[in-house]
């Protein structure tokens, strides 16, 4: 690879001369030149794609705005005026065949319908659903469910749910256990939306774990339902899917299904720490005073995480039955900070009796405990 002379070349003036010059170089130099040429071509293509994508996006946006402007008066007429046009055969004359047949324009129209539906409820939403069906957009959405591309399936699920296509429930079920977590979530959300009377019917079919994110989305959907449609979450407390059990316990607390308190009390005896912890939290949210004695009895045998949950609950329930436990915690040689804070706050809520206990403890001249008491009693903290 090393040469002992440096050659200078004259600039060729014809294609032949360029060719001769090129072939005069050693093979490895020619390869490198080829690589440079490839890189330059790629750079040119990338430049073109960057500029082209901008132009493409601008054109797409212009078309979308055009469609929106064109059909805004149409939608206004159909949604807010007399519904005779909507129900008659002349409905189809309001829409340009070209717009309904062109893939991009059709999808823009569909997006516009979806966007309007997200902003309206009641009769207006119902009319939108009718427009959606009459223009056969439900077929477009249903065909998306069969796509191999997950994002199209997800889009189809969302559209069908939003537009209340209840007959799509069955084909949606297969996605609740998809390997794709987004499809699972979209399927669940869609099924809740489409089955308002029995929104969580699919929970017994769940084989995949529900994450905290899944639970948050399900909770958000359930919160939109009328109170009479909220299911009894105790139905699934015996599920073999632990995440379903945890979800249901959490929902019992969130929706304050007080009838389930005895069931939750029994769950405090279960082996699984996370189930016990969730049950304690739910009992706290329902202010289940009947749980207090059991929680006090459980405390010494529990893990630190569950102990912390117990103390939070006892702080909320706060009765004199727990005073001896708080006293015991605060008299430990090395008191746990979080446990101590909860105990002190609970004692403060118990009026004179609680304050008397605190007074005795503060007289023990334990500097750390003095600081913890000051911290717990400071309104700014």
């Amino acid at each position, binding site marked *: 690879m090393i040469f002992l002379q440096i050659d200078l070349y004259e600039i060729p003036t014809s294609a032949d001369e360029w060719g001769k010059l090129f072939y005069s170089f050693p093979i490895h130099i020619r390869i490198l030149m080829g690589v440079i040429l490839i*890189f330059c071509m790629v750079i040119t293509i990338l430049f073109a794609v*960057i500029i082209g994508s901008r132009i493409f996006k601008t054109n797409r946006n212009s078309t979308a705005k055009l469609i929106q402007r064109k059909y805004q008066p149409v939608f206004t007429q159909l949604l807010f005026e007399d519904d005779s046009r909507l129900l008659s055969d002349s409905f189809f004359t309001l829409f340009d065949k070209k717009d309904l047949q062109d893939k991009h324009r059709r999808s823009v129209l569909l997006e516009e319908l979806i966007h309007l539906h997200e902003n309206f409820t009641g009769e207006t939403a119902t009319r939108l659903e009718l427009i959606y069906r009459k223009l056969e957009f439900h077929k477009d959405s249903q065909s998306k469910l069969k796509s191999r591309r997950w994002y199209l399936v997800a889009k189809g699920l969302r559209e069908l749910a939003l537009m209340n296509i209840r007959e799509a429930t069955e084909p949606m079920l297969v996605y609740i256990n998809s390997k794709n977590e987004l499809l699972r979530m979209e399927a669940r959300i869609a099924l809740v939306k489409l089955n308002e009377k029995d929104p969580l019917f699919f929970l017994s079919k769940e084989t995949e774990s529900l994450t905290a994110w899944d639970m948050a989305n399900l909770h958000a959907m359930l919160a939109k339902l009328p109170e009479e449609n909220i299911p009894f979450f105790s139905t699934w407390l015996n599920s073999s899917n632990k995440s379903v059990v945890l979800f249901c316990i959490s929902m019992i607390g969130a929706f304050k299904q007080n009838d389930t308190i005895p069931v939750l009390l029994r769950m405090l005896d279960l082996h699984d720490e996370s189930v016990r912890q969730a049950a304690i939290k739910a009992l706290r949210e329902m202010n289940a005073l009947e749980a207090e004695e059991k929680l006090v009895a459980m405390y010494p045998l529990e893990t630190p995480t569950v102990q912390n949950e117990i103390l939070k609950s006892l702080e909320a329930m706060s009765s004199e039955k727990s005073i001896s436990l708080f006293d015991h915690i605060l008299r430990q040689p090395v008191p746990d900070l979080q446990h101590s804070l909860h105990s002190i706050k609970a004692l403060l809520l118990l009026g004179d009796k609680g304050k008397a206990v605190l007074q005795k403890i503060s007289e023990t001249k334990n500097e750390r405990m003095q*600081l913890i008491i000051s911290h717990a009693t400071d309104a700014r*903290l």
Partner: protein
Amino acid sequence: MGYFFYYFTKFADHFILVYSCLIFATYVILSTYSGLDIINYIRKNSFIDYRTILTAPTAPSISILAPAYNEQATIVDNIRSLLNIHYVNFEVIIINDGSKDNTLQLMIDAYDLEPVPYAFDQKIDCKPIKTVYKSRIPSLTKLTVVDKVNGGKADALNSGINVSKYDYFAAIDVDCVLEYEALLKMVKPFMEQTEKEKVIAVGGVVRIANSCKVQDGKIIEVNLPSDFLPRAQVLEYIRAFLMGRMAWSKLNGLILISGAFGMFDKNIAIQSGGYNHKTVGEDMELVIRMRRLMEERHQKYKVVYLPDPLCWTEAPASFKILSRQRNRWTRGTAETLWFHKNLIFNPRYRFLGMISMPYWLIFEWFAPIVEMLAFVYLIIMAFLGILNLELFITLFFVIYTFAIMYSTSAILFEELSYHQYKKKRDIIRLLMTALVEPVLIHPLTVYYAIRGNLDLMTGVRNWGDMQRKGFAKKK
């Protein structure tokens, strides 16, 4: 002697060529992986409503830790910006790390702070905390200010961890501007973790805020930096964040989350020992140590990287400040690799030991050294009159055109993903910057990296003075 010289030059030529090809190949592989993952992520994101987290009973509470040292120019505004973050249950802990200016007094005056008796467990060793402050104003209960003896950024973060209440903490540079939904986006991976696979840390893209319009602690208009130096860094950041780290995250081999903004599982961070104050690369060192802990426990885990621009920071606008920054980055990388040298090529640590750590050693830390040695070699060959000019020129153009191609790909990634630079002229300027950056800025960064290694060998340990202009209130 002649034979030795001949074989030495043969070896050198081949080494430079093979090393260059390997770097090119890794960049192409990583950027391909990143590109596919970004497309997937953006598609997923279009279905996500992050506001769900605001009302979710399962949403975790977060402690935001922001160390401050001599930040009097901007501290009041920065805190205001942090307090207005779009999230429900969080606390903001500002750690005044022994500032010599008026940082503390300005905070006390602006937020009506007073000392409070604050009990905490010293889970990680740190320099003494002098006073903890809370505000008298009821609406500012989220704010806690910790005044401590100076100990450096790592030490300040450790004291913040000790004082924090919640199970997750976000470490942030106090002068960074966060995107509106930054915390919501960072929290989501933690909410998606399962019992089988724990998320221990989440990082996001840091973008350059020079020339952007900032108002009330928010970016209201994104502009490409008008100065060449920060503009060149925009390219670097896009290459590194969008085309590099995404791939590493996808492969679960990411060992660096930017110190400007990252979120961590507090328990795992504490069990790992907290931030290491013996290195200036404390951000990378913590992630490696957390990963190491999980590997040694044989627990499945993830370090997640989000391609969303979550945080905006000021890039160095002068060569002097840039040199300090790159010097520090090099020292941090070298120190961290040295601390964890027994992980490198250690099969016990699986992907971390066999791929991630070796990659950083060979292609991140060692690359500037190879470039410098190659340059010296070329000079020597030219001096001896045995430089193969044809080979040199063609190799130079191969590297140059590859660099432009890689930068142009980065611009395309940015264009197709987040499309932050909407003005046509910004894209044209970015493309023009890509043409000159490899010959103007890159050699400087190599030089700064070499200086960093030399400084490390001569015992330099400090951060250097990173002067920032601050985000002036621009209308």
